[in-house]
């Protein structure tokens, strides 16, 4: 019934490349084990497991993240406070210079006999 002689060269190459392959080692044993187990549920196959971190390492990473976030927040708040103090100092300095300038102008106007007004 099979007619490989009717195949073209490409088809013959394809048929040759598609010869049956062996299942993984221990396949028959795994099937037999499933048949003999009282509740043959899911197939047990050799499969790459996703990498799972140990609990302690996950905890350590979480703790490090928390400490990092907390430290970052603290640093940010300190920076904001320092910025506010610097701004306050600059404001005071500005006010002091302005007062001195106004006082100087007031004295000069007084010397020139011009009333500065209240």
């Amino acid at each position, binding site marked *: 019934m099979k007619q490989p002689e009717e195949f073209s060269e490409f088809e013959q190459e394809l048929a040759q490349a*598609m010869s049956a392959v062996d299942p993984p080692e221990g*396949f028959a044993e795994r099937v037999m084990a499933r048949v003999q187990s009282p509740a043959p549920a899911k197939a047990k196959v050799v499969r790459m497991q996703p990498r799972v971190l140990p609990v302690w390492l996950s905890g350590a990473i979480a703790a490090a993240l928390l400490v990092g976030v907390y430290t970052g927040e603290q640093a940010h708040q300190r920076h904001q406070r320092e910025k506010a103090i610097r701004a306050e100092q600059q404001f005071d300095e500005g006010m002091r210079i302005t007062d001195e300038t106004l006082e100087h102008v007031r004295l000069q106007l007084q010397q020139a006999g011009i009333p500065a007004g209240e």
Partner: protein
Amino acid sequence: MAIANDEFRRLIEAHQRMVFSIALRVIGDYATAEEVAQDVFLALHRSGERLAGEDHIRHWLRRVATHRSIDALRRQTHRPEADAEEWVEEMDAGTMPSGNFALHARLDDLLRTLPEPMRVVVVLRYQEEMLPEEIARMLGQSVASVKCHLHRGLTLLRRKAAVTMKEYVRETA
């Protein structure tokens, strides 16, 4: 009554290559193919009393393996054609037939790029050497539809092979 253990073990050993190869080539994923192949044999064990004769069992296994592989392929959220390189790594020299390993691996890669209906008929035609009429009966399709999938699948494979093999020759030169 189910099949006796000794007889069942003999049936697994006699047909495991065929069942696993259909699953692997249709699904394209090694682990899922084994899972499906195991399920096919379990189904055989359960319905063993209704199957008589080696030919009957062979046809039954081929049909169930094909349909379950198609179902598994449709369930996959990511299609195997995306990880063709992984396929080559999975198929180490120990599991490959003798001959030109690279050529075989390339053809399998190309096969995985075919859409499901074409891939299934190509596997059944060239791996199982089934006639289009037999494939049509198994899949519940018309012979014309099977021939059309086969023709389109072959054309696609030939076109892709022309490009890929040229690259392969360049790489190995």
